[in-house]
């Protein structure tokens, strides 16, 4: 293969994409950088809305607000040295072409080096009542504040198995929301067991977690640990969330909004369309794309950040830098010699996330207990009972894409992003097969709904 000539293309302007771009720019290249959002930052480091900006110190704390302002100024300078295309949706990859829609116009970008760094969204388990207005994802609850300048309700319960519960709750409390309850469904015994490993792999991040806990105590936020979520109650809106405490007592927590999250789920669709193979990670109990230690997943393909492997903000940035070094080497350019150090750092931070995942476990066991009438697929309104029936009737190997074909679960607008995880577990628990043998929903272009005109102009359809 001849050396790459075209500018590198980066999909996603979160911490991974921005760090990759910065390293490429330092080496004298001008990468094409695109993001569906209008502004850079991604989700975790999403920029505050103009209305929220005056409250940056209150929201982030003074030290972190200053750091953030400095980082964002650097990013703004970086963007002037990139071919920056905000508001651009990447919907497909065919051979060496990336198909995009920008402000309703279609474009096809040829590439010989592509970094996909499109992040992650909340990993969710279906819950009776979770389609009621007032139920949002935990990430959504944070975006509500940062981008939409609003709380998701007046009396809010944040529930699930995720360290992000504590961050989101602190953000709400700092902005003045008083009526706030955290229901952490993970077990304190699991957390104690994982603690030593977490301290060893990333003491700084672990300490940040403890500070958050102390802050919530100081602010008087009620915290319930080790409970199970039973259902969201209400007619036409959230009125309460019913939980079972660790001691067996059932309590309905009155509220007008609920935020749900059980950790993160990588956005792997574009990587898959670009040819990446996915493999099952037994600790995270989920599928991730295969890469080499620098994030390379093919001749023309690199992956970084949370869409490659859950690792958080810092691991995302370091993995973006690492991918950039690997891209430079593949172009025959001289590479600054710190790749080995970066590899060790990324590895350590990802190990930390794995240990965190065993502290905040994905509640896979709940799938078997879901009442039949629970809506699993929000888009197509497919119930747990319908899925169970389809699995039981299946002749031959049980596989989630076949269950999807029969039930339409995962066939709606979100393309299985919010039901896929429940579907996998439900298929496994009903058939009695290990979850890694029932597969995962395959990616298909377009990975997001697009105007049909755009698809017809593209090469793919």
């Amino acid at each position, binding site marked *: 293969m001849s050396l790459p000539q075209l500018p590198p293309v980066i999909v996603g302007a979160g911490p991974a994409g921005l760090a990759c771009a910065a390293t490429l720019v330092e080496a004298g290249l001008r990468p094409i950088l695109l993001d569906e959002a209008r502004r850079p930052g991604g989700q975790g480091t999403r920029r505050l809305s103009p209305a*929220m900006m005056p409250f940056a110190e209150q929201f982030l704390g003074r030290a972190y607000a200053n750091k953030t302002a400095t980082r964002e100024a650097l990013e703004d300078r970086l963007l002037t040295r990139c071919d920056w295309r905000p508001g651009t949706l990447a919907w497909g990859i065919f051979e060496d072409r990336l198909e995009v829609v920008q402000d309703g116009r279609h474009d096809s970008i040829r590439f010989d080096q592509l970094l996909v760094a499109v992040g992650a969204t909340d990993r969710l388990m279906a819950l009776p009542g979770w389609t009621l*207005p007032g139920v949002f*994802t935990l990430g959504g609850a944070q*975006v509500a504040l940062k981008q939409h*300048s609003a*709380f998701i*309700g007046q009396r809010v319960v944040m529930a699930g198995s995720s360290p992000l519960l504590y961050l989101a709750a602190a953000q709400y409390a700092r902005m003045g929301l008083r009526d706030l309850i955290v229901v952490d469904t993970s077990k304190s015994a699991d957390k104690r067991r994982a603690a030593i490993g977490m301290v060893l792999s990333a003491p700084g991040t672990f300490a940040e977690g403890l500070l958050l806990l102390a802050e919530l105590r100081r602010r008087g936020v009620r915290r319930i640990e080790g409970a199970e979520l039973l259902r969201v109650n209400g007619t036409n*809106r959230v009125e309460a969330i019913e939980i079972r405490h660790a001691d067996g007592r059932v309590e309905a927590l009155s509220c007008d909004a609920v935020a749900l999250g059980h950790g993160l789920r990588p956005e792997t669709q574009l990587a898959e369309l670009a040819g990446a193979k996915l493999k099952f990670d037994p600790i995270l109990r989920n599928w991730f794309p295969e890469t080499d230690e620098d994030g390379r997943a093919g001749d023309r393909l690199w992956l970084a950040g949370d869409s490659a492997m859950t690792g958080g903000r810092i691991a995302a940035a370091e993995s973006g830098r690492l991918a950039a070094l690997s891209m430079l080497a593949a172009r025959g350019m001289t590479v600054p010699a710190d790749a080995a150090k970066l590899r060790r750092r990324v590895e350590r931070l990802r190990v930390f996330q794995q240990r965190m995942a065993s502290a905040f476990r994905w509640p896979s066991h709940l799938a078997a207990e879901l009442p039949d009438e629970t809506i699993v697929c929000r888009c197509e309104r497919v119930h747990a009972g319908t899925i169970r029936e389809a699995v039981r009737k299946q002749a031959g190997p049980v596989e989630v894409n076949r269950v999807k074909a029969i039930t339409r679960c995962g066939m709606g607008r979100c393309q299985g992003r919010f039901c896929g995880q429940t579907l996998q577990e439900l298929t496994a628990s009903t058939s009695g097969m290990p979850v890694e043998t029932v597969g995962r929903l395959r990616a298909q272009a377009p990975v997001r709904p697009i105007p049909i005109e755009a698809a017809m102009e593209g090469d793919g359809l």
Partner: protein
Amino acid sequence: MLDGPILFRPAVERRPDITIRFEGRDIPACAGESLVTALLTAGLLTGRSEFDGTPRAGFCLMGVCQECTVWTSAGQRIRACMTEARPGLDLRTSAPFETFAS
């Protein structure tokens, strides 16, 4: 039929300075804020499920779930969480042309 609960509570002072049209009604909004803020602070839904008619009012708020999808009068399908409010917007909850379902 699109009146719902008031879901969003502004976290900072909000002073609407424009109006947008939604299902033929004038809705106060701040120029530049997201449409989902304008709708959910006004106690409006973003639509109803095509399958069982139950109310929809956004979910992920970051462009992934498509549950806040609305349509412009020109027939463009947009996500209320990813689109900024601007004067003259005329929105509805279903496509302004015939679909197979209608």
